[in-house]
């Protein structure tokens, strides 16, 4: 069993090491998922309900395969979603993730996307809403190898803090060795738009409801592309938001 990481290790820079220590020994090895060529895979990651919720996946996406992951990170103490993806030619990967937390929770989504072949596409959309003294982080590393020409890799990371004492961290990292690529990322941290809040108030929404509604809008859209049954992720996110906004 490898040693418990420290915060000096980049991937654990914002982690709750104490919580990690509690579960480290019993932690399962990362799931290995291989998606075959041209295959389609959709995964919906719901919070397990445990106060410490760690999920680790290593994916290899074969040529032309399409992967969609919808993840809600909402553990009450420490939630860590770790995704390591290797993309082959023409593969298409998208992650839609939300960190929603209050209290003293530490939530993080840590991804490594390796474009090792040409023409693969990856899109990551992350939305975090943190209240009280919660910490929400996104560490997203994109590695484009020399062979990864015509890569299209995008990250859209937005965070909203509701209370002084909450923390938002983002590290959208790019390591690029090919020149014919489209790698853009945007990261913003902000607060609820005051004009929108007033508009809602003028229409009769009390402040708590207004906040919750606008936060829903902020996170909303993450679940739009789910095919079939969403397993309740949209409703769970809504409930989590109301709790945090209260």
């Amino acid at each position, binding site marked *: 069993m490898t040693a418990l990481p420290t915060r000096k290790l980049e991937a654990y820079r914002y982690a709750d090491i104490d919580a990690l220590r509690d579960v480290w020994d019993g932690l399962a090895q990362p799931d290995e998922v291989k998606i075959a060529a041209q295959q389609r895979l959709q995964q919906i990651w719901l919070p397990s309900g445990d106060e410490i919720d760690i999920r680790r996946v290593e994916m290899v996406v074969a040529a032309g395969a399409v992967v969609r992951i919808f993840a809600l990170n909402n553990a009450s103490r420490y939630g860590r979603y770790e995704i390591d993806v290797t993309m082959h030619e023409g593969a298409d990967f998208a992650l839609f993730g939300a960190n929603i937390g209050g209290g003293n929770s530490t939530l993080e989504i840590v991804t490594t996307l390796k474009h090792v072949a040409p023409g693969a596409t990856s899109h990551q959309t992350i939305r975090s809403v943190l209240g009280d003294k919660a910490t929400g982080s996104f560490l997203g590393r994109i590695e484009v190898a020399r062979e990864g020409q015509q890569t299209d890799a995008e990250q859209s990371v937005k965070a909203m803090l509701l209370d002084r004492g909450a923390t938002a961290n983002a590290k959208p*990292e790019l390591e*690029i060795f090919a*020149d014919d690529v489209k790698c853009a990322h945007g990261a913003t941290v902000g607060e609820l738009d005051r004009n929108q809040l007033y508009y809602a108030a003028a229409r009769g929404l009390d402040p708590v409801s207004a906040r919750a509604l606008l936060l829903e809008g902020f996170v909303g859209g993450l679940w739009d592309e789910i095919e079939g049954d969403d397993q309740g992720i949209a409703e769970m996110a809504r409930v989590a938001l109301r709790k945090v906004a209260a």
Partner: protein
Amino acid sequence: MNEEVVTNREAREALAKDYEWGFSSDIEQEFAPKGLNEETVRFISAKKGEPEWMLEWRLKGYRAWLEMEEVDWAKLTIPEIDYQDAYYYAAPKPKPKLGSLDEVDPEILRVYEKLGIPIEEQKVLAGVEGARKVAVDAVFDSVSVATTFREELKAAGVIFLSISEAIREYPELVKKYLGSVVPQRDNYFACLNSAVFSDGTFVYVPEGVRCPMELSTYFRINAENTGQFERTLIVADKGSYVSYLEGCTAPMRDENQLHAAVVEIYAHEDAEVKYSTVQNWYPGDAEGKGGIFNFVTKRALCAEARSKVSWTQVETGSAITWKYPSCILKGEDSVGEFYSVALTNNYQQADTGTKMIHIGAGSRSTIVSKGISAGKSNNTYRGLVRVLPGAENVRNFTQCDSLLLGSECGAHTVPYIEVRNPTATIEHEATTSKISEDQLFYAQMRGLDTESAVALIVNGFAREVLKQLPMEFAVEAQKLLGISLEGSVG
């Protein structure tokens, strides 16, 4: 505009000449013995005739350094540095005396030509024997030029000296501010620097004064003697303004492999400091051997309300560059800016960026980083924007763009955004691109050869940063970008 360029050069020359004669030269030993121990530190302090408190400060730094651990997290491959295998003090030594320009490395000459440096100045820069005298006497009346500038500064009350002189002439001022922005224990190289720094610049601009001219290191540092451990301290008192230029576009050749400089800027209420760097470290051969390791700690403290510091840098060359000019935005409504163009070619490695630490309410920061990678080089932007919980209404905007020339180089971005106040608005964008076939074709159709076309496009890419530079530097920087790109295309 060209006239101005010449005049500044003249002035630089003249003043440098003066300062050279100003060094005390009554010491026999030229070198401290190899290696680094307490004796070395005492030797340096004695050499400079420093007061007791200064020696104590150095020793404190040295002892702290012994306990520190070297950091090694950059994407750089740093060969092990043997700190004992180096000379920590060398008297200002003249460059090897060359008989004529013919004995100068033709590569260097070619660069001088391309930069448009007049022959006489080339001789000076290359260290051709007897050159200095010739240049100064023949071309202009040096004494009057030097006098004019010095008098202007004096009239304005601006203090602009070597730091060694400042320690002797304005000890209270130096004591007050030295180490106030970069404390000795801040990091490994800054700590080393505090023990063995050899020289540097001290600037103090009094309250309400707008420094009447751009201050340049050229005024003060003899071109022949780039210090390895320089320490610069710039203090702008309330409501003052100063623009400081560091560097030179001619390739700075140096046997000293390790450069660990420290630059501290302290800005009082309503003060503004503009610090511009155009640096072209001679990168050694095309294999990258013999290049320079450039580790610099540059930090500004916007200590009081509405203070502002802008860092602008154009970096090319250097085997390994490791510098993060930073701003601590403590004052309310203080402003920090970072504009950077870093160009790497051949086997160069650059890991540069900035840190903006927001402490004061209403503080704002702007970061524009343009990285250009060519050849087999690696170019990394590493930045931190941090907002502390008490910092209300902070605004940050960051734009990081990478341009890759060719398919053998690397461009990397490592931004850290850490926000702990809900009212902050932080925006970060990054893009990666290459020169499109269309752009090249268009330029070529207008009659440009490939190299010129590339230089043109690269300058366009870097324009937002270049326009922050004082005009003279901007022109030199543009040329420099063009030269540094040679061999990168086709």
